[in-house]
C-alpha cells in the first residue's frame, strides 16, 4: 500500500540538484525522521498492535461515506503526518517551530482523499502551510500561534533523560501533564526542550520498558530525569491468549511477570523458579537430580484425580515444554488462570495456560549482553545415619529386650577399635556414593538490534551441571553425572511492505547427559538399604563385595556409564498483513510451526566381579573371600533406538480493533490445528476455532466474551468438537470522576469477574475410548515340553460411544488496587473451579462381573477453590535508593465430589469422596501402649476394653490405634483421612529488592504449607531394627524412641522390634509429618560498575553478581529436605548453591 486510494498524481521526479539544495535541511530532516522512526518502531514492537491501531485505523481512508469524520477528532497533527508518510511516498520536512505544534489535535475527514486534500484541510484548521517538492513536503508553522492560546508567557525547560546507569534515553516522550498534546521527544543525546505554560507545570516522562515518571518543574530551567527500568505502568501490555492487551482492559485473571524475576537460582529448569514467584502457581521441586530436577507445578493447584494436571505451556503460541528454555530467551511470561483468559484454548485449557514469548529484536544499534554465572552446589540436607558400632549395639539391645542374648559384642569391640576395617567395616553409604560439592555454570549471549525493516534477536546459552555422585578416578571412564545444554534462539522480524510483516523464529537446544547406567534414585535407595557393617565399599585388596543387596558404591562407580543426547528444534514462521484497506483496524496473521524432539542414548555398562563378604583371614593374613558372581571384562555396549516426537501447528487469525469515541471494540477470531506425532499408531490431533470480543466503554467499563470451539480425534465422530464460552466484566473505579479526589492515593482500583468453561481432552488411561477393544493377554503353552505357545486374547475395554472431554466451570473474582502512583500494587483473586465429567474407570462394579477392564466413563467431579494474593511495593526514595518489596500467596483446596466410590464407602470414614486428591489415609494413633493396657503383657493380650489390634502381636511401646469404625478391632477398615496431602495447598513467596547507587541487593523466600509426608511409608525397613541387621540404615535420631527404661510417649520411634513390626509400620498419624517449610531461595548481591568507568572501556554496563540459592531451609521436619519426594530420605537431594557471575552489555 504505497498510495492512498484514489491518489494518482504523486509521481513527481526529483533530481540531484534538488537534493543538494536541500542538503542542510535534509540533515535535520534526517534526524527528525530517525527519531520518529525509532519512536514508531519501538511503539509498534512494544505497545503491540491493538493499541497502536486505534490511531492509524481511525485515520485510515474509508470508503464508507457515512463514516463519521469525528473519529479523527482526537488525532494530532503528527499522527496525520505519520499516517500520510507511511501510506504514501512523501516525506515531511519541518522545522523546530512546527515540532511544537505537532501534538495539537485536529479533526479531519480522511475518507477517500488525496494527500493534497488532507493537507489543505490540515492547513485550514491549524494555520500551517506546506510546499511540495518532489517526494518532500515542507511544512511551515503559523506565526506565534501557540502564544494566542496561553495568556502567560511560556517557560522553556530543558534537560536530559537517562536510565539508571546514566545512559541517555532516546525517544522518551516528555509531555505536559495537564495538556498531554503538548509533548516532545528526547533526541539522540537524550535531551529535550519543551515550552511549558508556567513554572509549576508537571512534566510526564514516558518510555517503553521504563516506569513513567512525573516531575514538577518548580521554577527549574533544567530538569534532568532518571527513568527506572521496569514495566511502564500506564502503557503496560499483558500477553494474553493469541495476542496482547493493555493491562487496563484485561478482565481475566492473568499474572504476568517480568522474565528478570525468573532469574533466581542457578537451576537448569525455569520450572524451579515459579513457586513463590508467580502467584497462582502451586509448585514443588521433588528432586535435585541433574536433568530430572524439574518442578511439578499446577496452576491454582490440582483439580482432578485423573488425567493430565499440567498446564498447557505455549512458547510463542506453540505447545512446548518449559523445562529447557533458558531464562534469557524469555521476553514475557504470563499465566492465564481463569476461564476468561483460557476459554479460547477450549479442550486444551482446563489446567490453565502458561504463555511464554521469546525475545524479539528492537530498533537500535546492536546490543550485546554477555552473562555468566558459576555456582558451587551442595545438597541442602542428606539423611544422617548411625555407624556400625552403634547400629550393632542397637540390634543387640533389641535382642536383649526380646529375651535373646546379644550376638554382636565381639564385632562391636573390633569395629570401635578399628581393628581390621576389611572385616569390621563402618561405612556411611550415602557419604561413599556422593561428593560434598558439585557445580553448575551458565553463559548466555544475547544480541539484538535492528532497523525499521529488519529486527533480530539472537540468544545463545550454555548450561552445564555436575552431579554429586562419586566416581572412581582410577577408572579411565567417567561415570559421574554431567549435564551440558546448549540453547540457541534466533528470532527475526521483517517488514516486507509497510503493511506486511514477517516473523521467523528458530530455536532449540542440545542436551548431553552422562551418568551411571543405574537409575540414580536406585543408588540412593540402596545406600539406605545396605547397613554400614555389611562390607566395605571395596576391600583393601581390591575385591568388591555385595550381599543379596547390591553394593551402592559399586553401582555408582564401577558399572560404566550412560550417555544420552537430546535435541529439540523449534521453528515458527508467521506473516502478518494489515487489512486496513478492507476495514480499518483489521489485521490478518498466519503462523506455521514445526517442532522436533529426539533423544537417544548409549550405554557402556559392565558388571564388576562381586565377592561375598569376607568371613575372616587365613593364617597368612589373606582375606577369606569367595567370588559370588563373575563380572564382565569390558564395558558392554547398547544403544537406544532414536524416536522422539514432532509436531506441526498451523494458525490463522483475524484481529480487529477500533475505537469509536468512547466505545472501544476488540475482536479476535482464530483457526488453529495441531498435529503431534510421538510415534504411537496415530498422531494426536486437535483443531478448532476461537474468538474474543471485548468492549470498553469510556475506558472504565469492560466486558469481554471469549469462546473456543475445538476438538480432538480422541472422541467418536459427532462428539469431537466442543464449545467453551466465557464472559468477563471489569470496572475501573479509579477512572470514575467521583474517585478524582482520591487519585493521589488510590491510583488504581479495578474489580473484575469472570465465568466460563474450559475443557480437557488429555484423558488418562485410554485413547480412542469410544472404540471397544480386544485385549492381548497372557496366553498358554501347550505340548508336554511347552513348545507350542499361543498368545491370548480376551475382552478388552468397552467402547463409550458418547465419550467426551472433561469440562471445568471456572469462576473468578478479582480486585486490583494501586496506591500512591503505583508505588503499592495489590491484587486479590478468589477462584472456584468445578471440574465435571472427569474421565475415569467405574469403580463400583464388582469383580464377580468378570470385566477384565472396568468400563470408563465421564463421571468424576472435583471442586477446587482458593485465593491468591500478591503485593508489590516499589519506592524510589531518591536518585540513589530504591527499595521494592513483593509477596504473594496462593491457597488452593480441592475436594473430590464424585469418584464412583461404592455407596457403602461414600460417607464412611474410609471415603475418599469429600477429601482432597492425594489425601493421606491411615490409622489414627492414640499414643503408645503402656503396661496398664495389657492383661497379659508377655502373651500380648490386651485389656478387654481395648479394641483388638490385628496387625500382629503388640507389646507396651507399640503404637495404639483408635477404633474408627467402632467394630472393636483395628484393621484396614479403620484407615481414614489423616492430615492432608503431600502436595502443598499453600505456596507463598516474599522478597525484597534494594538498590543503592551501584549496589543492588535482592532476597527471596519461598515457602509452602499444608503439606504432609508419611515417613517410612512403603519401606518396611525404615523403623530401626526391622531389617534385623540385614537391610536398612538407621537415622541418627534413633535414640528418640520408646524403651522400657524410658517409656515416654513423646518420642519419634515406638518400641523397636526384632524384625518387622506390622503394627508399628502401618501408615498412621504417628508417621505423618508436617513438611511445610520456608526456604531462603535466592539471595543476590550485585554491583554495577559506574558508567564513566565503563565508557572508557567502550562498554555500557557491567554488573557483578554474587548469589546464594536455597541457603537456608526452615522446617519442623529435620530428617531430610522436606520438599523431597521420599519416605526414607534416600533420594537425590535438592541442591543449594553459591555463585558468582557478571552481566556485561556493550
Amino acid at each position, binding site marked *: 500500500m504505497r498510495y492512498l486510494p484514489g491518489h494518482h498524481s504523486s509521481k513527481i521526479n526529483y533530481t540531484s540538484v534538488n537534493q543538494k539544495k536541500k542538503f542542510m535541511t535534509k540533515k535535520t530532516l534526517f534526524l527528525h525522521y530517525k527519531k520518529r522512526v525509532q519512536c514508531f518502531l519501538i511503539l509498534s514492537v512494544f505497545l503491540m498492535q491493538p493499541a497502536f491501531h486505534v490511531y492509524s485505523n481511525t485515520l485510515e481512508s474509508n470508503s464508507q461515506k457515512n463514516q463519521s469524520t469525528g473519529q479523527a477528532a482526537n488525532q494530532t497533527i503528527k499522527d496525520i503526518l505519520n499516517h500520510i508518510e507511511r501510506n504514501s511516498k512523501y516525506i515531511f520536512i519541518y522545522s523546530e517551530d512546527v515540532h511544537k505544534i505537532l501534538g495539537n489535535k485536529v479533526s479531519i475527514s480522511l475518507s477517500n482523499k488525496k494527500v493534497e486534500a488532507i493537507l489543505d484541510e490540515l492547513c485550514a484548521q491549524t494555520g500551517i502551510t506546506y510546499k511540495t517538492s518532489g517526494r518532500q513536503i515542507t511544512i511551515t508553522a503559523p506565526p506565534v500561534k501557540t502564544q494566542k492560546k496561553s495568556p502567560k508567557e511560556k517557560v522553556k525547560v530543558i534537560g536530559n533523560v537517562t536510565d539508571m546507569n546514566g545512559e541517555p534515553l532516546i525517544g522518551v516522550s516528555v509531555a505536559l501533564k495537564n495538556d498531554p498534546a503538548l509533548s516532545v521527544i528526547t533526541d539522540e543525546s537524550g535531551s529535550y526542550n519543551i515550552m511549558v505554560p508556567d513554572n509549576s507545570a508537571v512534566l510526564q516522562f514516558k518510555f517503553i520498558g521504563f516506569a513513567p515518571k512525573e516531575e514538577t518543574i518548580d521554577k527549574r530551567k533544567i530538569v534532568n530525569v532518571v527513568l527506572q527500568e521496569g514495566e511502564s505502568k500506564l502503557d503496560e501490555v499483558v500477553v494474553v491468549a493469541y495476542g496482547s492487551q493493555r493491562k487496563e482492559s484485561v478482565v481475566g485473571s492473568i499474572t504476568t511477570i517480568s522474565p528478570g524475576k525468573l532469574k533466581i537460582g542457578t537451576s537448569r529448569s525455569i520450572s524451579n523458579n515459579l513457586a513463590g514467584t508467580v502467584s497462582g502457581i502451586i509448585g514443588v521441586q521433588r528432586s535435585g537430580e541433574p536433568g530430572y530436577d524439574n518442578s511439578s507445578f499446577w496452576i491454582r493447584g490440582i483439580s482432578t484425580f485423573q488425567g493430565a494436571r499440567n498446564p498447557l505451556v505455549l512458547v510463542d503460541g506453540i505447545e512446548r515444554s518449559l523445562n529447557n528454555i533458558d531464562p534469557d530467551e524469555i521476553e514475557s511470561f504470563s499465566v492465564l488462570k481463569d476461564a476468561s483468559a483460557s476459554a479460547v484454548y477450549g479442550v486444551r485449557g482446563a489446567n490453565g495456560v502458561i504463555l511464554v514469548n521469546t525475545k524479539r529484536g528492537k530498533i537500535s544499534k546492536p546490543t550485546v549482553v554477555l552473562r555468566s554465572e558459576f555456582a558451587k552446589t551442595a545438597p541442602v540436607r542428606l539423611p544422617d545415619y548411625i555407624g556400625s558400632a552403634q547400629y550393632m549395639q542397637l540390634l543387640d539391645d533389641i535382642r536383649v529386650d526380646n529375651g*535373646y542374648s546379644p550376638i554382636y559384642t565381639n564385632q562391636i569391640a573390633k569395629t570401635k577399635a578399628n581393628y581390621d576395617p576389611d572385616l569390621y567395616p563402618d561405612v556411611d553409604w550415602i557419604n561413599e556414593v556422593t561428593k560434598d560439592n558439585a557445580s553448575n555454570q551458565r553463559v548466555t549471549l544475547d544480541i539484538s538490534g535492528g532497523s525499521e525493516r529488519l529486527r533480530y534477536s539472537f540468544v545463545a546459552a550454555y548450561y552445564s551441571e555436575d552431579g554429586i555422585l562419586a566416581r572412581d578416578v582410577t577408572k579411565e571412564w567417567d561415570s559421574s553425572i554431567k549435564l551440558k545444554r546448549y540453547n540457541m534462539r534466533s528470532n527475526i522480524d521483517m517488514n516486507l511492505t509497510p503493511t506486511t510483516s514477517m516473523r521467523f523464529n528458530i530455536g532449540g537446544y542440545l542436551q548431553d547427559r552422562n551418568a551411571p547406567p543405574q537409575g540414580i534414585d536406585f543408588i540412593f535407595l540402596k545406600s539406605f538399604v545396605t547397613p554400614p557393617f555389611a562390607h566395605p565399599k571395596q576391600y583393601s585388596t581390591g575385591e568388591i563385595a555385595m550381599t543379596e543387596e547390591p553394593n551402592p558404591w559399586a553401582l555408582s562407580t564401577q558399572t560404566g556409564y550412560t550417555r544420552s543426547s537430546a535435541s529439540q528444534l523449534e521453528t515458527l514462521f508467521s506473516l502478518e498483513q494489515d487489512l486496513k484497506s478492507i476495514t480499518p483496524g483489521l489485521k490478518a496473521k498466519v503462523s506455521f510451526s514445526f517442532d522436533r524432539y529426539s533423544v537417544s542414548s548409549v550405554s557402556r555398562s559392565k558388571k564388576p566381579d562381586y565377592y561375598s563378604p569376607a568371613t575372616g583371614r587365613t593364617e597368612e593374613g589373606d582375606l577369606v573371600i569367595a567370588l559370588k558372581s563373575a563380572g564382565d571384562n569390558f564395558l558392554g555396549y547398547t544403544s537406544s533406538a532414536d524416536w522422539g516426537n514432532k509436531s506441526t501447528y498451523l494458525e490463522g487469525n483475524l484481529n480487529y480493533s477500533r475505537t469509536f469515541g468512547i466505545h472501544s471494540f476488540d475482536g479476535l477470531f482464530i483457526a488453529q490445528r495441531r498435529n503431534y506425532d510421538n510415534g504411537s499408531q496415530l498422531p494426536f490431533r486437535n483443531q478448532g476455532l476461537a474468538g474474543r470480543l471485548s468492549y470498553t466503554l469510556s475506558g472504565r467499563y469492560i466486558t469481554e466474551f471469549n469462546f473456543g470451539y475445538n476438538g480432538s480425534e480422541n472422541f467418536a465422530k459427532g462428539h469431537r468438537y466442543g464449545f467453551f464460552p466465557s464472559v468477563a466484566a471489569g470496572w475501573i473505579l479509579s477512572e470514575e470522576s467521583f474517585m478524582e479526589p482520591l487519585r493521589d492515593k488510590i491510583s488504581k482500583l479495578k474489580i473484575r469477574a469472570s465465568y466460563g468453561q474450559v475443557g480437557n481432552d488429555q484423558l488418562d488411561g485410554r485413547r480412542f475410548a469410544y472404540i471397544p477393544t*480386544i485385549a492381548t493377554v497372557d496366553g498358554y503353552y501347550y505340548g*508336554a515340553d511347552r513348545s*507350542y505357545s499361543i*498368545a491370548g*486374547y480376551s*475382552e478388552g475395554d468397552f467402547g463409550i460411544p458418547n465419550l467426551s472431554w472433561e469440562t471445568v466451570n471456572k469462576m473468578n473474582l478479582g480486585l486490583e488496587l494501586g496506591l500512591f502512583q503505583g508505588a503499592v500494587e495489590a491484587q486479590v483473586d478468589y477462584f472456584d473451579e468445578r471440574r465435571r465429567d472427569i474421565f475415569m474407570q467405574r469403580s463400583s*462394579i464388582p469383580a464377580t462381573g468378570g470385566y477384565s477392564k472396568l468400563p470408563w466413563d465421564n463421571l468424576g467431579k472435583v471442586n477446587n477453590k482458593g485465593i491468591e494474593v500478591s503485593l508489590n511495593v516499589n519506592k524510589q526514595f531518591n536518585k540513589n535508593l530504591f527499595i521494592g518489596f513483593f509477596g504473594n500467596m496462593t491457597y488452593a483446596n480441592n475436594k473430590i465430589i464424585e469418584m464412583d466410590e461404592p455407596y457403602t464407602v461414600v460417607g464412611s470414614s474410609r471415603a475418599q469422596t469429600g477429601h482432597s486428591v492425594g489425601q493421606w489415609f491411615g490409622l489414627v494413633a492414640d499414643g503408645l501402649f503402656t503396661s496398664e493396657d495389657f492383661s497379659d503383657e508377655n502373651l500380648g493380650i490386651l485389656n478387654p476394653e481395648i479394641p483388638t489390634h490385628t496387625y*500382629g502381636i503388640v507389646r507396651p511401646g507399640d503404637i495404639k490405634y483408635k477404633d474408627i469404625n467402632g467394630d472393636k478391632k483395628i484393621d484396614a477398615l479403620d484407615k481414614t483421612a489423616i492430615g492432608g496431602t503431600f502436595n502443598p495447598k499453600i505456596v507463598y513467596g516474599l522478597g525484597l529488592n534494594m538498590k543503592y547507587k551501584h549496589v543492588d541487593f535482592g532476597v527471596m523466600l519461598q515457602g509452602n504449607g499444608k503439606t504432609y509426608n508419611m515417613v517410612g511409608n512403603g519401606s518396611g525397613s525404615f523403623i530401626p531394627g526391622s531389617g534385623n541387621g540385614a537391610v536398612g540404615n538407621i537415622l541418627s535420631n534413633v535414640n528418640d524412641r520408646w524403651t522400657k527404661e524410658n517409656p515416654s510417649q513423646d518420642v519419634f520411634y515406638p518400641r523397636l522390634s526384632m524384625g518387622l513390626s506390622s503394627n508399628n509400620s502401618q501408615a498412621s498419624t504417628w508417621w505423618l509429618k508436617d513438611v511445610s517449610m520456608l526456604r531462603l531461595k535466592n539471595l543476590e548481591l550485585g554491583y554495577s560498575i559506574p558508567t564513566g568507568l565503563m565508557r572508557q572501556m567502550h562498554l555500557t554496563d557491567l554488573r557483578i553478581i554474587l548469589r546464594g540459592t536455597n541457603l537456608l531451609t526452615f522446617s519442623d521436619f529435620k530428617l531430610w529436605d522436606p520438599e523431597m519426594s521420599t519416605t526414607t530420605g534416600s533420594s537425590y537431594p535438592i541442591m543449594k548453591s553459591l555463585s558468582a557471575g557478571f552481566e556485561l552489555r556493550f
Partner: protein
Amino acid sequence: MSSCSDYLDKQPDDQLTLDMVFNNKTNTEKWLAGIYYAIPDPYSYGDVDPQGDDMCPSPRWEQFGFKVIAYQVGNFSPSSIWTKNYWNTLPQKIRSAYIFLDNVKPLPDQGLSEKEAEYMKAEAKFLIAYYHSLLLTYYGAVPIIRDDQDVSSDNLMVKQEPFYDVVDWINNELLEAAKVLPPNYAEPKKYGRATSVMCLAIRAKLLLFAASPLVNGNTDFADVKNCDGTPIFSSTPDHERWNDAAKACKELIDLAEANDYGLYYEYLSDGSIDPFMSYQNAIMNRYDEGNREILFARPKAAYDGYDYVTQPRGTGGSGAVGVTQSLVDAFFMKNGKAPILGYSDANNTPIINPESSYTESGFSTTDEVRKTRWKEVKGNSLAEQNKVTLAGTYNMYCNREPRFYVSVMYNGSWYNRSSRLTNFYYGGADGGPTHDAPQNGYLVRKKVDPNADPVNKVYKLRSGILYRLAEAYLSYAEALNEYDYTSNVTTIVKYLNLIRERAGIPQYGGSGLEIPENQEKMRDMIHQERRVELNCENGIRFDDIRRWKEGFRIDGKFWGMNFNGTLKSDNAADPLAYFVRTTYQTRKFKSYWMPIPQDDMDKNPNLRQLPGW
C-alpha cells in the same frame, strides 16, 4: 482448509473386533489360550503352600512385600491382597469363556472342524467349572456365574449360593465336558488341553472336599447365610458324600489306568524299585519323558524362580524357602514307622515313637549307604549303591525314608553341584544374617532340579503338575476309609501300599508293619502318608488342613533350627548351638476360608463375608 471436516476423522486401524477373532482360527485359539492362562502354576512359593504347614519362605521377606507372611502371622484381612487373588481374577476368565461359548464356530475352510469346535466348547466348559471349583474351595460361599452379563445389567450384584448347589453344578458341568473330551490327545501340541481325565480329576478333588468335615455337617457354619437368609453350608452330615467322593476317585482311577496312566517308577538293574529316583522324577520328569503319573499339568511353570529361591545362597540361589520342622518330623523312618507321635510341651519337645529308632541327639558316626542311583550325596548315577547321609549328620536326619532326602535340604547335607556340605550356620556361606537364608534351618528340595544352576540359569524343563495319580490313590483310600473302613480295608491298604512301595518303605501287612486296626488309626496313617507323599505340592496340604478342620496346625509357634547358631551342636543350653528346636515364627490362624476382598464387599451389598474375617 478443505480438509477441516475430516482432519480429526482418524480412527486406529489396529483394533480387533469380536468378529475378527471368531472368524479366524488362530484368533479363536488365542481367545481360548487366554482363558487357559488362569490355570494355576504350582511352582509358587508365595501362597497356598506356605499357607499350610509345609513350606517356610523367609519370614523377613514380608518387608519386601512378600504377602503370604502376613497371612501366616494373622496380619491379614479382607483388605489384604492374596497372591492368588482368585476372587478378582477367575471371574474374568469365566466371563471370557462364556463369550467364547457364545461366539466360537467351526471354520472348516481354515481347518477348524465341527469336532474341534465341539472340543473347544467342552474345554471352555471345563475351565468354567474348574475355576468355579477353585473359587468354591477357597472362599466357600460363592455365586455361580452362569453367563456373561452386560455391564449395565441389573444382575451384577450377585449373591452367594449354597455350597452343595455349587458343588452339584460344577460336578454336572465337569461330567458334561468329560463326555465330549478325549482322555488324551495324540498330537503332541495338544498336550495340556482339557481332557476327560482332567475333568474327572478336578471332580474327584472337589467331591473329596465336599465330603470332608469342614463342609459336611459342620455346625460351626450354621449361621453362615447368604443375603436371602439361605444357609450356605449344611449342618447335618451326609455320609453318602464320602461314597460320592470314593466313586469319583474310582472313576478317575479307572479311566486313567485304562488310558495308560500309571505311577512313575525307576528301577535298579536287579529289577527293584529305586525309590529315590522314582519319587524325585515323578515330579521332575514330563509326560513326554515317560511320566504317565501326571493326570493334569500346566505345561509352562515358573520352576526357574522356584529353583532359584531354594538353592543355597552360597551357590548362587537366594536360598530362603524352606520347609517347616513339622514336615521334617512327619517323614517316616526307613523302617516305615512314624518317628514322632506328638509334642509334649511348649518347647516343641517331641514324643518319640519308641519303635521307630529315631533320635534327636548327637551326630552320626558313619556314612549310610542305600541301594539307589540317587547321587546327591557324593554319589554316582551309574552306581547301584550311593550314600544317603555322611558321618557327622545330625541324627534327626539319619535313617529317614527316601522321600525325606528328596524333599528336604538340611544343614550339613551334601550339596553335590558345589561338592560341599551346606553351611546354614549364622555367618556361613548359605546362612544368616541375611533375610535370604534358611530362616528355620531348612530348604525345600522337592520339585527342585538337583542340577539347578542359578548362576548360569540352567534349570530342567518340567511341567507344573496339578494332579498326579498318587493323589487319586490317596484320596480314594481316604474316601473309602471314611465311608466304611471295615468293608474297604483291603482296597484301602492296596492303594496305600502302592504309594509306600514306590516310596521304598515297608508296606502295611508285611515285614513287621501291621495294618492299622481301626478307622481312626487308618485315618491317621492315610493323613500322614498323604502329607508326606504330597508335601509342598500345589497347596494340597493347606486344603487338607482345612478339609479336616485342623486349623490348630497353622496356629501358634513354628519351629526350626537355630538361625543364629554358629556351632555344630545340639546343646539346647548354648544359644549358639545350631541343632536346637527354635521358634522362628508365631502364626495366627483366622479362618478356614479366604476373605472376600473388601472392595467387592463394599461394591456388592448382596455379599456376606465368611466367618473369621
